């Protein structure tokens, strides 16, 4: 079975370490915050200028001056800091964020990522995504393995305009967890009940399949 959005978030959350500063993109990445293990503490960076994003506010706490990068009202947790956009991207561009999780339309075997533009269809802008992929060493890209029409999103070469070049090393799809090494996707884990064959079939880019590909385990 393909992973649910919640399972994808759960799987990504296993990459969190105690004391990590983490930037979570919109969509599935945002859900990761719900699966932080109880015995670790992570600090969420929101690129509009908030380090230490807390929960949504109560009615009483609601404050127009307190939003996250998704423009949602939020709160600040204990230990938070708030700063300018220049400072926020100094952190991001300077490589101070420990883990970045973001969605994508396509990833290719060179680690290129396309996530911000579909010519003639969607031109909303890249927001902070280009800075995030350029600044981070440690990025996990989350997306469905294939489009609704069955077209692979793990390509030999991205077809859409890039968000960043040669910057992605790790991809979690609804079918598999893969790493990108030396111009190829390496299949590291598969979703419970998903066969290697299905993953091979739905991966357009070069795929290396080790002898043993463990299944992910969920509670």
């Amino acid at each position, binding site marked *: 079975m393909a992973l649910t959005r919640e399972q994808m978030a759960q799987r990504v959350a296993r990459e969190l370490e105690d004391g990590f500063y983490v930037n979570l993109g919109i969509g599935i990445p945002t859900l990761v915050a719900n699966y932080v293990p109880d015995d670790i503490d992570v600090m969420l960076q929101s690129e509009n200028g908030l380090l230490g994003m807390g929960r949504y506010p109560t009615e009483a706490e609601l404050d127009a001056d307190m939003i996250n990068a998704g423009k*949602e*009202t939020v709160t600040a947790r204990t230990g938070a800091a708030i700063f*300018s956009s*220049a400072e926020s991207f100094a952190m991001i*561009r300077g490589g101070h964020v420990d883990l970045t999780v973001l969605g994508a339309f396509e990833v290719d075997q060179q680690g290129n990522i396309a996530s911000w533009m579909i010519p003639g269809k969607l031109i909303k*802008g*890249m*927001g902070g995504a280009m800075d995030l992929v350029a600044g981070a060493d440690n990025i996990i890209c989350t997306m469905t393995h294939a489009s609704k029409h069955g077209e692979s999103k793990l390509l030999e070469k991205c077809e859409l305009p890039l968000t*960043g070049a040669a910057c992605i090393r790790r991809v979690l799809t609804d079918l598999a967890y893969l790493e990108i090494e030396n111009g190829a996707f390496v299949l590291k884990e598969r979703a419970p009940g998903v066969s290697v064959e299905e993953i091979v079939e739905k991966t357009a880019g070069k795929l290396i399949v080790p002898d043993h590909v463990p299944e992910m385990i969920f509670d």
Partner: protein
Amino acid sequence: MAGFDKRVSSYEEAMEGIEDGMTVIAGGFGLCGIPENLIAEIKRRGTKDLTVYSNNCGVDGFGLGILLEDRQISTIYASYVGENALFERQMLNEEITVVLTPQGTLAEKMRAGGAGIPAFYTATGYGTPVGDGKEVREFNGRPHILEESVVGDFAIVKGWKADRYGNVIYRDTAQNFNPMAATAGRITVVEVEEIVEPGELKPDQIHTPGIYVDRIIQGSFEKRIERRMVREG
């Protein structure tokens, strides 16, 4: 002597001198911390053919979005413009030129402009359409692109509190692009919720020192919320 008293008493005075064809740098992120009354004054004046640097372009009917109604903006540098149907139509009809700019690069362009740094290298955007036509150079074994900074004819800024000297502090995440915008205007206008007595702001806690600020006005703000999220209390 007027000295350093930068207070003005009307929005008309606050935006005096803005002319067709000028470049305006605006603070704000989404609808948070936007100089909403200064934008309304530009709308009232009907100033045309503006080039605007702002992370977003407001929404239909609020924020910079209202300047689209009479096509006052001809070019915008922004990182994200997805909230605005009118905007999308003008873009598709090529009635407005949109230069999509990575958020961090946009912030740094303003900061560098204010700081007298005409250009800087960044890895952001290399190998993407943002890097097209820009100089590429390797540093530390990695390709970077050259980005130029910006100085505007006007900067419009939303602060929380200011004193008559033009010292400003921002509140929570309404800070965002405002401090950089404030440095990058030939004329910088700041509207705030409260003008406080001199000495009330602690000198080492001021976000924007008065040297960057030309005019200060106290206003009242709608502070519209774009995505209202609440949890059970």
